[in-house]
């Protein structure tokens, strides 16, 4: 074994490599530091994206009314007299989506949780390529900076939706160029990270940790990494092509004879707007599975731990995960049903889309069944994990009519779609991410977050977030279009459901207030949280063997796995949990500080 890391060796290593503050905290190659960098940066971007949405929701609830508090600081070009211009609304919409997906959720779920937890859960000293790991964080950071900076150029940020469809995006203002450049940085970051995650999972598993003994969290990150690795490059190619259309006057996506603002464009034409859509959605569909898979992983860990039971159907869940990952590459044109495609191709994509719902249902069902007969502990992470289940259920079920072409004709580009995907990502993934933060905070800091604040945060957020998104189905079914800066006010068919805008906006602002509790709890607990042992949740997986927080190199004794990841309440065992690293189950466990 090359990697026996005794306490002595770790001690020796620490003294050998006296790193400067910059090397330890800024340009670190330690996966835990990088994970925390990703997590904090992502949470800042999440807060920023959330703020953009709160401003949008003012406009939707009270169209044309001057925005209170900050209206006069948004600039004359965006909101003269505090009244939001439609152009600014479009920027907010496009950037809210972009920031939440590419700079918020994925960097937190994959860059944050993946980086911090994965090496620990497989008993590894770090990622396979620590320097590439560092580079991937800084590429993400730079991409984020470019995206935020785009608000401040003439014409403002990208305003053609997070989907940047041609020809609108090609003829849009400078901000779109910055969006494309920013995306190239972000994609590069993801590709580097994906290579690292896959290599690490395959190569650096501790002895005894076979693939079918891996925690489900690791499987979820592994499949996610494959999705990122293989789905992102076509979008990178498309981004380059769109940059060329914008900057070099090419016509990859520009059809012939296009007239913009009364003038015929001078490019050659002959291009295809549909080509952009194919290349974009080839990534963006697997991307939504990138958004949900880490959440599945987190929730599974927390449910096993807090039911004191093994997960029901581990093997079936793993098979479903892999099948889901594969299928996610061949469903993308269900985002394009109304582009005029023929019925044969439409049938193909409807079929694959219906098939892909099966593994999701299997995974959700297995998690529900895992609760049966459990000795449930309603800890803060468990509350969030439990709520994830029905929320993801609603999100998934509402996707079904969208995946079938006939109902999609009615629902496409309405608020129904927005309700569907937000349910999966916001009441879904975001709640799971909160669960993960509460769950692994003690491992990262040696302290617990405050339980009372956590539970108030949970209940307040749970009700408020449903208040924001449930009415969207009502509006969507009534035919209210998305991306309307006045919330549908100008349409006769929207009048009866317009009042929901006010309800949803208040729900959003109330949701914000409960996040303040979380932010305070998070930072306060880092220094003043209740100190806890290395394994306060009495969990079985390998990360809980390491000290809290783990030192450089992670483990103070050699790690070996002797059993599966969820040996809770095994009849005959000494306690109600048997860690993976324990050789004999009947021997009483060593006392931990």
């Amino acid at each position, binding site marked *: *074994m*090359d*990697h026996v*890391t005794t306490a002595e060796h*770790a001690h020796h*290593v620490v003294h050998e490599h006296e790193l400067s503050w910059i090397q330890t905290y800024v340009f670190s190659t330690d996966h835990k530091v990088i994970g925390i960098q990703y997590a904090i940066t992502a949470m800042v971007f999440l807060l920023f994206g959330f703020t953009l949405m709160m401003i949008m929701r003012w406009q939707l609830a009270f169209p044309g009314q001057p925005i209170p508090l900050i209206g006069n600081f948004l600039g004359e070009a965006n909101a003269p007299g505090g009244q939001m211009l439609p152009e600014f609304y479009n920027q907010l919409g496009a950037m809210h989506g972009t920031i939440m997906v590419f700079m918020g959720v994925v960097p937190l779920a994959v860059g944050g949780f993946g980086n911090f937890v994965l090496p620990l859960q497989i008993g590894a*000293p*770090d990622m*396979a*390529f*620590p320097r590439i790991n560092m580079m991937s964080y800084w590429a993400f950071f730079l991409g984020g900076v470019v995206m935020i900076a785009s608000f401040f150029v003439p014409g403002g940020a990208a305003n053609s939706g997070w989907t940047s469809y041609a020809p609108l995006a090609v003829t849009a203002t400078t901000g779109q160029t910055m969006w494309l450049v920013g995306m190239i940085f972000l994609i590069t970051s993801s*590709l580097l990270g*994906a*290579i*690292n995650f*896959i*290599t690490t999972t*395959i*190569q*650096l598993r501790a002895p005894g940790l076979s693939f079918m003994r891996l925690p489900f969290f690791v499987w979820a990150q592994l499949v996610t990494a494959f999705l990122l*690795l*293989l*789905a*992102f*490059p*076509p*979008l*990178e*190619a*498309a981004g*380059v*092509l769109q940059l*060329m259309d914008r900057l*070099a*006057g*090419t*016509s*990859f996506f520009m059809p012939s004879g296009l007239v913009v603002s009364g003038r015929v464009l001078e*490019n*050659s034409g*002959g*291009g*295809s707007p*549909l*080509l952009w859509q*194919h*290349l974009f959605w*080839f990534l963006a569909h697997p991307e939504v599975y990138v958004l949900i898979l880490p959440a599945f992983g987190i929730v599974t860990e927390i449910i096993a731990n807090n039911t004191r039971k093994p997960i029901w159907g581990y093997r079936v869940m793993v098979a479903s995960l892999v099948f889901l990952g594969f299928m996610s590459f061949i469903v993308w044109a269900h985002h394009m049903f109304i582009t005029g495609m023929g019925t044969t191709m439409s049938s193909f994509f409807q079929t694959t889309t219906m098939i892909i719902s099966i593994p999701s249902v299997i995974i959700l069902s297995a998690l529900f069944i895992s609760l049966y007969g459990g000795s449930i502990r309603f800890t803060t992470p468990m509350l969030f994990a439990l709520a994830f289940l029905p929320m993801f259920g609603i999100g998934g079920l509402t996707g079904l009519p969208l995946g079938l072409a006939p109902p999609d004709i009615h629902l496409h580009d309405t608020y129904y779609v927005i309700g569907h995907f937000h349910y999966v990502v916001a009441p879904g993934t975001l709640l799971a991410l909160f669960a993960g933060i509460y769950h692994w905070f003690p491992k990262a800091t040696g302290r617990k977050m405050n339980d009372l604040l956590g539970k108030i945060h949970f209940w307040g957020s749970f009700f408020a977030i449903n208040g924001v998104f449930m009415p969207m189905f009502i509006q969507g079914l009534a035919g209210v279009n998305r991306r309307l800066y006045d919330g549908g006010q100008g349409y006769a068919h929207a009048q009866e459901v317009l009042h929901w805008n006010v309800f949803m906006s208040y729900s959003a602002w109330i949701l914000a207030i409960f996040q303040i509790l979380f932010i305070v709890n998070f930072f306060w607990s880092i220094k003043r949280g209740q100190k806890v042992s290395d394994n306060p949740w009495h969990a079985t997986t390998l990360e809980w063997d390491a000290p809290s927080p783990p030192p*450089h*190199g992670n483990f103070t004794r050699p790690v070996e796995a002797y059993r599966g990841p969820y040996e809770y309440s095994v009849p005959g065992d000494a306690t109600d949990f048997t860690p993976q690293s324990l050789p004999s189950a009947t021997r009483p466990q060593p006392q931990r500080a």
Partner: protein
Amino acid sequence: MDIPYTVAERPDTGLNNVKLGIWLFLASEVMLFGGLFSSYVLLRVGSFEWPHGFDMLNIPLGTVNTIVLISSSVTMVLSWASLKMHDLGKYRLYMGLTILLALTFMVIKFFEYGEKFTHAHYPWENTYLGIYFTLTGLHGLHVLGGVVVNSFLWGPGTKMWRTAPERFTNRVEVAGLYWHFVDLVWIFLFPVLYLL
């Protein structure tokens, strides 16, 4: 702190980390060029008129370039084989040849582009030229990248042969994998753009 299997192979997978890493990177590159090839197909199928490659490009030059790049792949793998046979001299010879052949490729490409620009044929003239310049341009950037890496391995990088010969041999092997991939892309680019 030691990351295991950076040089030695992990028994059950039979791989070291860098080899797996580079293949994963190449997989992503297959999808990158795949996106561009898919664009080529859609643009061509959706067009009213599409010129034949043989009417637009210089086939003899393209053929020479193909021969040049294939030869550089041969010399690259021979440079790695030389290291496996502990012959540093032969390694430097073959690696040097690889770099020279790569530069020859770039020169010919430069000449081809120059020909186009002198007759005012730019990427924005039509979608054929647009996708031609993009595909060959991105490929050319990859050739350049390979030249940089190979030059480092031929020059200052060789120091590692004395201190960690197996690790150095692995590096050359991995650089070779990248280089063969660049050749592989051209093997498809050439007929698609020049001959059809």
